[in-house]
């Protein structure tokens, strides 16, 4: 049975673009691919999934207890249909990283994390050591391949699909040992970091939560997402969901502008796939200039207002 199952990620209203990126990866493996959408009242999300190009069918598991993405409940539904698939893939977002190892362990297999390239049906490339080494991984072909897809490495599959939607009832009841309480969303209305075409980020040099308004105002002016270095998050200037880097978000915008970010290796690993990297830093020796396509050694507090004036 050579067929790939992609786990859809969504927020209850919209399909996360990570799903279409996983489909690209699944398509590169060369098999037909299906998508499983789990949730409560998910008809529209299933339709969005069915519109992704190259998808065979969408399996919609609609059940009230699946309304919140608890790994324990989602894993049970995926494992219930796992026999039909040679490969099971999910995004290497926090959603997928929480869920996929649960599935792998239940199937008794190791997981291939962060697929950056497909070299064969069981042969992949992935980064390790914060992206400082790329390793070739071969998964055993006698068992199911369970993998997370490094979404920053893949372009979203097209939107020209007409897959059928198959409704499925939940195969198991919800767990009674884990309860979802709620989500406090940090970000406002700005574009999502992992899908934004442009991202403006600030570092510790911003100096305060108030000063981050400079970053936000420039981001809003050019329709960019707003990010931050770990140092700025640790200092409490911005919420955690803005962190870009090895332990935050790995992103691949067309344009990334870093203000007052020195360029620690852990940060750089999160932006390596950006189209153009721009760095503005007072310190002309900052390591970020080593990897920046365009660098400007200057004070961000001068540069940002000047940029706003020139761009508005």
């Amino acid at each position, binding site marked *: 049975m050579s067929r790939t199952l992609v786990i859809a990620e969504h927020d209850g209203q919209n399909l996360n673009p990570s799903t279409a990126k996983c489909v690209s990866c699944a398509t590169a493996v060369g098999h037909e691919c299906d998508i499983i959408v789990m949730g409560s009242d998910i008809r529209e999300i299933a339709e969005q999934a069915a519109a992704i190009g190259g998808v065979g069918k969408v399996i919609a598991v609609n059940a009230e207890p699946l309304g919140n993405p608890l790994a324990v409940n989602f894993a049970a539904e995926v494992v219930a249909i796992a026999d039909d698939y040679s490969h099971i893939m999910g995004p290497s977002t926090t959603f997928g990283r929480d869920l996929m190892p649960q599935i792998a362990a239940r199937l008794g297999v190791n997981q291939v994390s962060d697929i950056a390239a497909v070299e064969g049906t069981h042969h992949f490339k992935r980064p390790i050591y914060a992206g400082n080494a790329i390793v070739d991984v071969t998964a055993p072909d006698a068992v199911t391949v369970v993998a997370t897809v490094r979404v920053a490495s893949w372009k979203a599959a097209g939107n020209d699909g007409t897959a059928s939607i198959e409704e499925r009832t939940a195969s198991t009841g919800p767990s009674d040992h884990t*309860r979802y309480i709620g989500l406090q969303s940090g970000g406002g209305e700005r574009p999502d970091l992992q899908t934004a075409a442009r991202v403006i980020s600030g570092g510790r040099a911003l100096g305060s939560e108030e000063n981050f308004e400079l970053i936000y105002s420039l981001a809003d002016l050019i329709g960019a997402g707003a990010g931050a270095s770990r140092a700025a998050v640790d200092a409490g200037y911005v919420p955690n969901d803005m962190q870009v880097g090895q332990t935050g978000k790995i992103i691949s915008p067309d344009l990334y502008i870093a203000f007052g970010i020195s360029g620690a290796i852990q940060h750089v690993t999160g932006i390596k796939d950006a189209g153009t990297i721009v760095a503005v830093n007072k310190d002309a020796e900052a390591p970020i200039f080593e990897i920046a396509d365009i660098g400007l050694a200057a004070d961000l507090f001068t540069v940002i207002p000047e940029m706003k004036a020139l761009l508005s």
Partner: protein
Amino acid sequence: MKILVGIKRVVDYNVRIRVRSDGSGVDTDGVKMSINPFDEIALEEALRIREAGNAEEVIVVSLGGNECQQQLRTGLAMGADRAIQIDTAGRLQPLTIARAFLKLVEKEQPGLVILGKQAIDDDNSQTGQMLAALWDRPQATFASQVTLSDNQATVVREVDAGLETIEVDLPAVITVDLRLNEPRFVKLPDIMKAKRKPLDVIALDELGVTSENDLQFTHHAPPPVREKGIMVEDTAQLVAELKNRGLV
């Protein structure tokens, strides 16, 4: 309640690693090794839970050869009560590690297993979730806040969309994120004291765990290098360059 904490010996996070020229792996000869930073945070959390009177014993566990005793001793110096080395020569993969932890869990009956959310060497982020699945107990991954009450834990998780809160019954597996706490520094007298704390060695075979379905890591390469770009003199030049390239 007992708390099990996993500790992995990894290349120190400040070291710039080098891929061996024959592609066989990453050069670790003579390189500074440390406790995986996330595991240090896991241990700190366990110690704070014990210090708050919610646990009696903190046990640090590492899988590896005798060299990982160095990291276990550091864990004991931070304040763990005892240590267990699961002795194995090979580099184990997360499924095997989770199975070994499960054996220890069956023996020690902890109320919590606290692990780092990922190791900074292979960046897998798998072991905690796999253990939870095999143990059939709750998982709370990427924790930035843990509150214990009445045999349950309320955990705030760092997720892409913000901060998610879940409630889990104990026993449970928690994997920790960076902002959960700041690990304490080890003091010299504690290092001396740690030498007298118990460190048990159990062979992996003794636990009845063997590796299966392992992935093969066939070749390592350095990442493609981004070419160094240009420096501009002022904001006007920067904006002009961005416009030239059609980026704004």
